[in-house]
């Protein structure tokens, strides 16, 4: 428990936020993917964050970084678009499109990048503090 653990805390947040950004990018890219690898339309995915406390801390006093507990699929209904000429159209002429909400994904992306920046700032501050601590009492 020292300034050094700030690196692991902020570092875990960096990787978690970048994974969130990855997922948002995947959702955006596949906003129109009618067929996924399983033959079904693409479903939007969301990351779930969880606190990742370092071991050896008193109960109820844990602090720690963050980790991605899992990537879940959005279960909201798929968008149905009327397009009888589409090869994937069903008997009624409707095509199931992914349930990606581009606006929400954009917001998600911005939020993730802001959080990422905040943690980079934390990392830089911790670094400069450590450097100053190393030169304590000199000159």
């Amino acid at each position: 428990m020292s300034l050094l653990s700030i690196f692991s805390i902020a570092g875990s947040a960096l990787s978690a936020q970048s994974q969130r950004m990855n997922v948002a990018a995947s959702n955006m890219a596949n906003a129109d993917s009618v067929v996924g690898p399983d033959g079904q339309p693409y479903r939007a995915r969301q990351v779930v964050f969880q606190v990742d406390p370092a071991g050896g801390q008193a109960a109820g006093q844990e602090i720690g970084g963050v980790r991605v507990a899992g990537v879940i699929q959005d279960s909201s209904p798929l968008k149905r678009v009327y397009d009888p000429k589409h090869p994937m159209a069903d008997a009624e002429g409707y095509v199931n499109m992914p349930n990606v909400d581009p606006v929400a994904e954009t917001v998600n992306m911005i939020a993730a990048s802001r959080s990422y920046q905040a943690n980079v700032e934390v990392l830089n501050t911790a670094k400069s503090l450590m450097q100053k601590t190393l030169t304590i009492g000199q000159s």
Partner: protein
Amino acid sequence: MLDRLNEDFRFFQQSLALRAQRQEVLSSNIANADTPNYKARDFDFRTAMQNAMDAGMRLPDTQLTLTSARHIPAKAASPGPPELLYRLPYQPSLDGNTVDMDVERVQFADNTLHYQSTMQVLSGRIRTMMAAIQE
């Protein structure tokens, strides 16, 4: 003599240690700004410092040896790390997260500044002692 030096620096050492710990707590808050149900933590620096300085006045960690079943166990133990409290949410969010990024960032910057100023003072102190030794 060295004991005196140690005693002289102890205040700053304690202060730096607590500042570093607070820095860590605040960085944990910032890292978990998007974690559902995470509650922002912090501790009161003044109280923690007071406790730490009071602990210095007391006996070091000791425990009485019990040689009879009728002896009363007694020990002097120093208080543990400062107790982490929960921040009162100003604008609680829907996912149960109470991290307010603005507050955390301000506190983080404030703590950084305090850490640096403590270090500055300690550096000056060390330099004074060095000068005294070398004269």
